[in-house]
């Protein structure tokens, strides 16, 4: 009697496989190199509809269209740079997962390094200050007491 649920489960898993396959279209690349370039580019380009996914992962209609666009451009001989420029001309720098280096993005690129430098400087100053301070003088009577206590302990 375990059979039927088991078969059902297998059947459902097989069906799930079908829908997963439908999400990723396969393109007839003319060469292995073109396919590798395609895979690299769709990883680097962002889908504008589901903004935290790249073209490779997204199943949005626009992502499908843009993947087709990338495929067609690669097969028609466009360079990677031409394809990236094509996308940036239409959708802006936002399509790039790696923001370009320019004046408006300097803070983005160097901000974390700047913060780290500030943090290290502050830390070093704190450490140096706590080291440079002389150990406070212990008053004579306290010293006597310590000596007495130590001697008591010895007995």
């Amino acid at each position, binding site marked *: 009697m375990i059979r039927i649920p088991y078969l059902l489960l297998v059947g459902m898993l097989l069906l799930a496989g079908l829908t997963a396959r439908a999400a990723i279209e396969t393109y007839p690349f003319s060469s292995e190199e073109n396919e590798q370039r395609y895979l690299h580019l769709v990883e680097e380009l962002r889908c504008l509809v589901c903004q935290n996914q790249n073209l490779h992962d997204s199943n949005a*209609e626009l992502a499908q269209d843009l993947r087709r666009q990338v495929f067609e451009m690669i097969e028609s001989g466009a360079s990677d740079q031409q394809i990236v420029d094509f996308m940036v001309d239409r959708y802006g720098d936002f399509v790039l997962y790696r923001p370009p280096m320019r004046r408006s993005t300097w803070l983005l690129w160097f901000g974390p390094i700047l913060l780290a430098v500030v943090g290290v400087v502050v830390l070093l100053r704190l450490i140096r200050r706590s080291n440079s301070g002389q150990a406070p003088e212990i008053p004579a009577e306290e010293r006597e007491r310590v000596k007495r206590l130590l001697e008591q302990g010895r007995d």
Partner: protein
Amino acid sequence: MGNKLRFLVPLLVFGGLVLLFAKGLELDPRKVPSPLIDKPAPAFELPRLKQSDATLGIDDLKGQVTLLNVWASWCSGCRVEHPFLVKLARSGEIPIYGLNYKDEPADALNWLRRLGDPYTAVAVDRDGRVGIDWGVYGVPETFLIDRDGMIRYKQIGPLDEETWNSVIRPMVERLKAEAS
């Protein structure tokens, strides 16, 4: 730095962060600025929705200040803005052209029959290629195009009376005044 002032430093840093975050909350990450603003509108030549043997191209829009509204019958935001588009078209302030994006022409025609047709003409972009050239990533989108065919503004999401009055109409009036 005085000893007392030192205690203000964390407070100031905190205050700065609060301002930054407050600003960040106001920004809508779904609105990606278009690089096409103040650039020539991308050329296209597509069949018209109502007379599919004729075409509509960017040259048909030139010579007047126009809106190009990207829409589809499957798009819920388009339904939201549609009554306003009909009203705007009726006022005669500006010709509205449509770009029917990745839609079934039969569905699109049906939609216009039921909800009213605000468009001077509609171009049919079935496979979304012209949409890519225009940087369309979420319908509805509306482009303001000047007489020379330059894109001046892009509205992302439904166009409503408030945005029209406060943002787009002043630009339209300026563009009309500039050219005459």
